């Protein structure tokens, strides 16, 4: 068992007379990707905010081990247009950041050319990469990502998920993220937790996919084929931008580059 980073124990959250979450148990480990899925209003973001300490749980507790250092990537970045801010200055705001780390981190997330751009003019995908860079500059042992591919087109989504996976392997950090687009994210996830106020089911993507609770929440009759979970063994290599490297590539039976 790898190092434990944080544990959510029997978390319950109540707003007024509305029980938003009850009895949630999740343990996060180093090097492991845990993906949180669930319908709108299921309490995914609230759960993440609880882990981050932005929301106090009504019951239960959050155990943060000494090894835990969080890099957080919020769902959106709203910066008031009256505030002139370049990418470099935005990243310089990370607490205790070493300014020398900014350039390599921008390289890592693939936007070194934007160092001096204003944050307001970035596209959706560029903004997500910028937020990822900020999370990385906090030298995390756990990356917490709230819908990391929001506002990004499908090919961009694949690139960002691949980037997250690469970073996970490089830093050996844990990843805890929220996602909507199940089939894209599941290929690289170790554990999927499906919640709807409570934990409906959890386990490996294949396990969750076959679970009746999951089917009840996400199953659309007749949509099984079109929403098939991408679960083939990787039989080819990606370069940094997520493109398939053709050299030495052998097509496997499940390999479908058009869906890639």
């Amino acid at each position: 068992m790898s190092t434990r980073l944080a544990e959510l124990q029997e978390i319950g959250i109540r707003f007024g007379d509305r029980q938003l979450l009850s009895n949630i148990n999740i343990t996060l480990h180093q090097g492991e990707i845990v993906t949180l899925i669930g319908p709108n209003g299921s309490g995914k973001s609230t759960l993440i905010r609880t882990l981050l300490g932005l929301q106090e749980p009504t019951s239960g507790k959050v155990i943060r081990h000494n090894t835990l250092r969080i890099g957080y990537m919020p769902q959106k970045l709203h910066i008031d247009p009256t505030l002139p801010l370049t990418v470099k200055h935005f990243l310089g705001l990370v607490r205790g950041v070493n300014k020398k780390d900014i350039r390599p981190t921008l390289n890592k997330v693939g936007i070194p050319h934007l160092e001096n751009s204003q944050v307001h003019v970035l596209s959706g995908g560029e903004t997500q990469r910028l937020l990822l860079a900020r999370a990385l500059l906090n030298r995390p042992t756990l990356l917490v990502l709230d819908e990391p591919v929001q506002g990004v087109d499908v090919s961009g989504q694949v690139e960002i998920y691949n980037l997250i996976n690469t970073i996970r392997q490089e830093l050996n950090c844990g990843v805890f993220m929220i996602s909507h687009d199940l089939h894209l994210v599941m290929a690289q996830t170790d554990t999927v937790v499906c919640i709807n106020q409570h934990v409906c089911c959890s386990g490996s993507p294949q396990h969750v996919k076959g679970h009746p609770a999951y089917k009840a929440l996400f199953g659309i009759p007749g949509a099984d084929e079109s929403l098939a979970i991408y679960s083939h063994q990787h039989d080819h290599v990606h370069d940094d931008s997520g493109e398939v490297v053709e050299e030495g590539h052998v097509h496997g039976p499940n390999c479908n580059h058009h869906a890639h």
Partner: protein
Amino acid sequence: MLELLMRALIGGLGVAAVAGPLGAFVVWRRMAYFGDTLAHSALLGVALGFLLDINLNFAIVVLCVGLALVLVALQKKQIIATDTLLGILAHSALSLGLVAVSFLDNIRIDLMAYLFGDLLAISQTDLYWIYGGGVVVMTLLVTFWRPLLALTVNEELAKVEGYPVEAIRLLLMLLVAVVIAVAMKIVGVLLITSLMIIPAATSRKLSQTPVQMATFAGVLGCLSVCGGLWASYHWDTPTGPSVVVCAALLFLIAYSLPLRRIQ
């Protein structure tokens, strides 16, 4: 006469140099109404100062800081929308101040000077308050620049990264309170927020970074003070409003010039 003008100029520059950079934060965080509320309550401070026979500047600073603390506490409770709360407090405090002033029969208060400011009435003691307060505010602003900016850009990220968010937010409100209390003599309770907001807004057009915007705001504020005093001297116009008109003119010029807004 010259000595009077010099004192007015020195006082005005001192206030503008601090109000500008802090005004940038007021603009970024949309705290204009918060500033107005504190400014309106400053008149109550004047009345209390006379009633209790204590130093007026001291009374104003205490009242503004006190009100800022009350506002922070009330905001947390979320009894009512913040702008409604501010509206209630701003006008209640102003009215309460006016009522309180009317009870002071044996003292003549130049109400206009407090409402619209009177640069030329600045005393030597006022100068000490302006520069004392100014140095404290600027020192804190420079020392805590990064946390203050991190908070302004995104409070949640700042909190996750370990900044003491609550304390920094309080610090910013107290800084605004001190500047308003100290600057009230110059442009008056009704106009003081304009000295924070207008130069900062003008500065936005010329800046690429937060530091630039804050610095230019201070410089533009100083220019407005010079221009306002000059106009006041030449045409015998009221000094406070002249300074604000001058700041507004600079704003109009900056935004009508075909300057490229740097991306």
